């Protein structure tokens, strides 16, 4: 009991109370009187709202797909590396980018993506990019944000998956080997099914994080002096509502929508996957 009390207190102070405050904001106006759903309606009618949803949705598709495919694949590869020293070195290497704070890693990428100063400018040139402006054309943004987010966040997940792979009982793996299963068959029929809960867990958290896309487009917007747009993602739009248009109540309404969508998505994933079923 005492063990959770501290956590519960912090959760109330920094999680529940602010959320309650935001809900209060979402249903009231600047003067504090109840306005029903008008904040939700007025923000949804803003000309940037639908665009921002589209941007975030496309980004989520790229981000979640790449995360599931590459994280699982890299973790399986890592698990197959038999030399323990090579495996340690690789785990360290995967983890390093995650140690950089979000904003700092985005700055590293701004540098990498500018053909004039990038160490991989020849590669960018081969892809047909000669100026920073060409690289950050609006159509390229979902892919760019995915690359940045993957580089920053995937390493930690690879290490988590690797740990989960290590937890698969050796007799199961051995049985597969004795039955003559190839590496591919073992991965597909034994390892991935046993990783399922971890993958669901990763997708739930990555969905919630991805839906809150903010740092990447915001910094890119500053670096490109506006080309990437200050209202690319829903969270940026929320920020604009709150601090540029003095509409904190509208901002709270959009935040509520994000919360509801993330919780609903998590609920669907959990229900469909039997996440809490006992093994």
């Amino acid at each position, binding site marked *: 009991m005492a063990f959770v009390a501290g956590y519960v207190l912090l959760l109330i102070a920094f999680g529940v109370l602010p959320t309650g405050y935001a809900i209060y904001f979402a249903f009231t106006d600047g003067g504090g009187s109840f306005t029903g759903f008008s904040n939700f309606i007025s923000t949804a009618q803003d000309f940037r709202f639908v665009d921002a949803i589209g941007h975030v949705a496309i980004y989520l598709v790229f981000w979640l797909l790449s995360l599931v495919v590459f994280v699982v694949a890299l973790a399986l590869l890592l698990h197959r590396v038999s030399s323990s020293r090579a495996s340690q070195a690789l785990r360290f290497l995967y983890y390093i980018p995650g140690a950089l704070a979000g904003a700092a890693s985005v700055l590293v990428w701004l540098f990498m993506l500018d053909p004039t100063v990038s160490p991989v400018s020849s590669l960018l040139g081969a892809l047909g990019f000669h100026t920073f*402006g060409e690289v950050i054309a609006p159509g390229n943004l979902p892919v760019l944000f995915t690359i940045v987010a993957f580089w920053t966040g995937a390493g930690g997940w690879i290490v988590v998956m690797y740990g989960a792979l290590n937890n698969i009982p050796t007799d199961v793996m051995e049985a597969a080997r004795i039955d003559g299963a190839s590496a591919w068959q073992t991965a597909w029929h034994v390892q991935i099914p046993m990783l399922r809960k971890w993958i669901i867990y990763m997708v739930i958290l990555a969905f919630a994080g991805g839906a809150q896309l903010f740092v990447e487009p915001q910094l890119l917007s500053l670096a490109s002096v506006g080309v990437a747009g*200050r209202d690319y993602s829903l969270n940026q739009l929320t920020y604009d509502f709150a601090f540029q248009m003095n509409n904190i109540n509208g901002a709270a309404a959009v935040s509520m929508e994000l919360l509801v969508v993330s919780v609903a998505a998590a609920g669907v994933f959990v229900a469909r996957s039997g996440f809490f079923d006992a093994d």
Partner: protein
Amino acid sequence: MFVNKPSVPSKRSVLLAVCAATMALAVSACGGSTAQKTTKDGFAQAPQKDGALTVWVDATRLDAAKQYQQLHPEVKLDIVSYDGDANGSNYLQTKVQLFNRTGKGWPDVVFSSQNNEASWAVDAGFAAPLDKGLIPADTLGQFAKGANDVCTVNGTVYCLRNDLSQAVLWYNAPLMKQFGYQVPKTWEEYQALGEKVAAEHPGYLVGDAGDSYTPEIYMWASKCEANHITGPKAVTVNTTSDSCTKMAKLMDGLIKNKSMSISGVFSTDFGKNEADKVLLMPGPAWYGGAVFKDTLKTPEKTVGVAPIPQWQGDTSPSTGNVGGGTWLLSQHSTNLKAATDFLKWVTTDNAYQGEKAPGFPAYAPAAENWLKAQDASGYFATSLSPLKDASSQVWSNWGSGQYSQEAIWAADVKPGMTQGQSIASLLPAWQASIVKHAESFGYKVSS
């Protein structure tokens, strides 16, 4: 065991205490200052006391605040350095929204590099009116004509302009002489020269259209009515009129023949590939120091200044304006006397504006002094007097609204230009975007 200690009531009371404390914090934060206010100088003033003066400045204006402190050691000055809202970061606005909620924390005097701050700072109850008693009328009268237009809301002045950013035509004097070219006086001559340069000296540039403030340099000078603020919440937007399309076509031609760049002057590729290829460059007053001297490292006695071209048949020259900082004074200041003194000093005194300021001072007597000092420095190849003429030639039908014209151009026109679309073909999209942004801020738009 700790868990079973009979301390449940005390835990509950701890929980209650934490909740009560949180509530108390929230209430006190929302309460703000409720002390009696007196209406004077056109606004309700907080009770005055002699406290330290909090001044927010950007890195460039840090010298100004330090110089004031040196000259006035008796004033307790708390100098806070911030980004000056550079690139429309909205830092000041963000903070003021928060201070308005918590009821404290506002700076007494603040510098901003954006000239549309008054448009929100008045609504937010932050900026104090200056022409109702704080700043004497004869001081205000000596600012350059139209300088404080961006600070004027409903006929009241709410900020003072730091510097002017009137556009002129910068050029490389030795290179022009070597190539045997004349500095163009009209946009038609400018266009002809661009075509000549493309044919005779490919690679050299007569201008740059890669920055987000490109419309302020070219479209404004062409009297394109993209941003005519006609009232506190009214704007006229017409980007497809003749005055807009003829400039768009001129630029498209020069971009096509590559005598006009579409990289921004501060972008890494411009600095690397085109720094020594600038033959001519229409741009604001601050280009002399910030672009040519500091960024492009153009050698001294190279850069000359001429008036911005005008269309043939135009009766009077007109030019655009790119930025120019403003100083705001907080309505919430509890030390208005010291704050006003600082504001007056920093915008008008020769010690800073007339001698040290990097940009063309908005206060005319200081500007005279500043021009003398610049000419005496010997960096420029010609006299800077065209800057003075241009200071009163800024076309007045382009205003400073709450939404950012630069952000709209950057997000909706620049990517198209990068992909090879012509500016002329992007004019309707530019118009649509301005209209949508203006309407979302509650502007009544006409075209």
